């Protein structure tokens, strides 16, 4: 016989009430775990996405820098173009480790996704693109046969969606051009997976954008030179330099304001759960007034009663914590799906990242919740005078 089994058996007496209270705590914990998981997952995915762009700086045509940056991350139409002179001008800079020009164009394909229609993102690149992203590997096929070849290399997902293999043809709808699939990249977990790549010159030619670029990605030899590098290009007309670290910070800042709202919801959920637990246990204490009096008569001290009621509360909250963790784990893909629908920009990768450490924190949090919620009901029960409790409950 121990206090946990006594407390557990007492909770079993009012099964529906106990299950509902545990459910309340479970939902609150699930909300909290999901939000914390999202916080971690989004940050890691975004950082991963930005790191996997391979460059620290991006030169784009003048405009909103964040719009341009997210466009690079996310893909989409409405891009601004700049002259390729800037690439020729900076490529010899000794501070630069690697540099690559890009031309992005999005094309609406009415046949995409089984006739639903959708945008296909094309990106004109040169070989240095792969130098910036050494992790990009070919799943099949090879690099373009020439700088002007009418060939494409497809990102993993793009090939899956279009159901193309090396050697197949791909039709670029708005320019009436047929290109040959020469290679398919392995999955990288970044935006590259959804892109169709083609030689830069071919892209400039078929999209009628001769000598134009949408961006130049730069990796410096020494990240500390970022300031002086930006300064030197400050007076260059028609362009702007975007630091990817800043973009990351800004996106996280934007998300953090939304997080305040969602965290408030979680706090309210927990507050309601605590009130629910206190109410349930208090009700149970009042119902058992006589029983508590009898326990005191047969030898229970005030501390014994306090511990017993406290343990019941901690049990409710612990079981709620376990239930909440299960709910959060099993519902994380649904939550991720909803978040991806709602957010204007969601990085690729796992957005709701629930690690064992987080579940442990949630479980300990639920126990602490029980410890706090149980104090008042336990004190009320412990302070009952035996004879009054016995006579009141008669």
């Amino acid at each position, binding site marked *: *016989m121990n206090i946990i089994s*006594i407390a557990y*058996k007492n909770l079993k007496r009012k099964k529906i009430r106990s299950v509902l209270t545990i459910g309340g705590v479970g939902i609150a914990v699930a909300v909290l775990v999901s939000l914390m998981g999202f916080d971690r997952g989004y940050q890691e995915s975004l950082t991963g996405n930005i790191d996997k762009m391979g460059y620290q700086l991006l030169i784009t045509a003048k405009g909103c820098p964040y719009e341009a940056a997210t466009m690079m991350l996310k893909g989409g139409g409405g891009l601004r173009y700049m002259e390729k002179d800037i690439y020729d001008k900076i490529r010899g800079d000794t501070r630069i480790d690697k540099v690559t020009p890009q031309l992005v164009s999005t094309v609406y394909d009415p046949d995409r996704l089984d006739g639903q229609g959708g945008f296909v993102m094309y990106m004109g690149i040169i070989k240095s693109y792969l130098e910036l992203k050494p992790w990009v590997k070919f799943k099949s096929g090879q690099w373009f046969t020439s700088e002007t070849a009418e060939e494409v290399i497809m990102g993993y997902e793009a090939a899956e969606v279009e159901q193309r293999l090396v050697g197949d043809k791909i039709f670029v709808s708005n320019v009436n051009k047929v290109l040959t699939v020469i290679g398919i990249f392995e999955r990288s977990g970044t935006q590259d997976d959804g892109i169709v790549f083609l030689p830069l010159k071919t892209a400039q030619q078929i999209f009628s954008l001769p000598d134009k670029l949408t961006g130049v990605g730069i990796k410096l030899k020494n990240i500390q030179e970022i300031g002086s590098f930006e300064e030197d290009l400050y007076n260059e007309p028609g362009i702007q330099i975007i630091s990817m670290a800043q973009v990351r910070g800004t996106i996280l800042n934007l998300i953090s304001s939304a997080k305040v709202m969602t965290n408030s919801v979680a706090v309210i959920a927990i507050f309601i759960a605590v009130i629910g637990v206190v109410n349930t246990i208090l009700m149970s204490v009042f119902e058992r007034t006589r029983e508590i009096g*009898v326990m005191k008569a047969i030898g*229970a*001290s*005030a501390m014994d009663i306090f511990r017993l009621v406290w343990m019941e509360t901690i049990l409710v909250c612990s079981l709620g914590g376990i239930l909440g963790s299960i709910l959060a784990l099993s519902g994380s893909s649904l939550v991720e799906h909803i978040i991806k629908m709602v957010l204007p920009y969601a990085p690729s990768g796992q957005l709701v990242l629930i690690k064992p450490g987080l579940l442990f924190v949630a479980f300990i949090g639920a126990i602490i919740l029980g410890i706090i919620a149980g104090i008042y009901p336990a004190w009320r029960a412990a302070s009952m005078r*035996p*004879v009054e409790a016995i006579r009141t409950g008669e």
Partner: protein
Amino acid sequence: MGELIVKAEKLTKVYKLSAEEIAAVNNVDLEISSGEFVSIMGPSGSGKTTLLDMVGCLDSITSGQLEILGNDVSKMKESRLVNIRRRKIGFIFQDFSLIPSLTALENIQLTLYFAGIQKKPKESIRLLEKVSLAHRVNHLPKQLSGGEKQRVAIARALATEPKFLLADEPTGHLDIENSQEILSIFKQLNEEGLTIIMATHNQKLGLQAKRIIYLVDGRIVENNK
């Protein structure tokens, strides 16, 4: 004459009901020694239960002196009273007062748990055997008859090997046959040397005790040793 279990001098308990003061127990002098089987009788409201509550260290004393096993409990703190209750006294209530979520055996073990006594389940089962309930060890109170419940309550009261039993109307919820059975158990326990103090308004049962104390309006009107 054995050890003095209860020694009360001018023991008084006054309840305040709005402006009125009612003396439920009024200037009672009483001595009960080890090995006695005492029946406290009297009409409803005569103060039997209040006297028992004070002797059981459950209720406070308004005035007078009360010693239990040589300890002056008149002004003792609850934290010390609980030690007397859990080790020295066995309680039996009219409505059995078993914990509904626990089996017969667990009800006994709960008392041991509170008293901090380590005993094997076998010893608790032996107590149930003593009250002829070996076949009801794992039954919940709701699965037991009234008489069986009271026998479990007796086994529970005996678990900590108390110095005396306090039984408040132990047969109040039982039929004649079960009442007589409970009384037979009390008699047997008393013969084995246990002191029993029983409050009852049932004349037939009460008169079977070795000693009768008759209360009227909180005062002892008859103390038949």
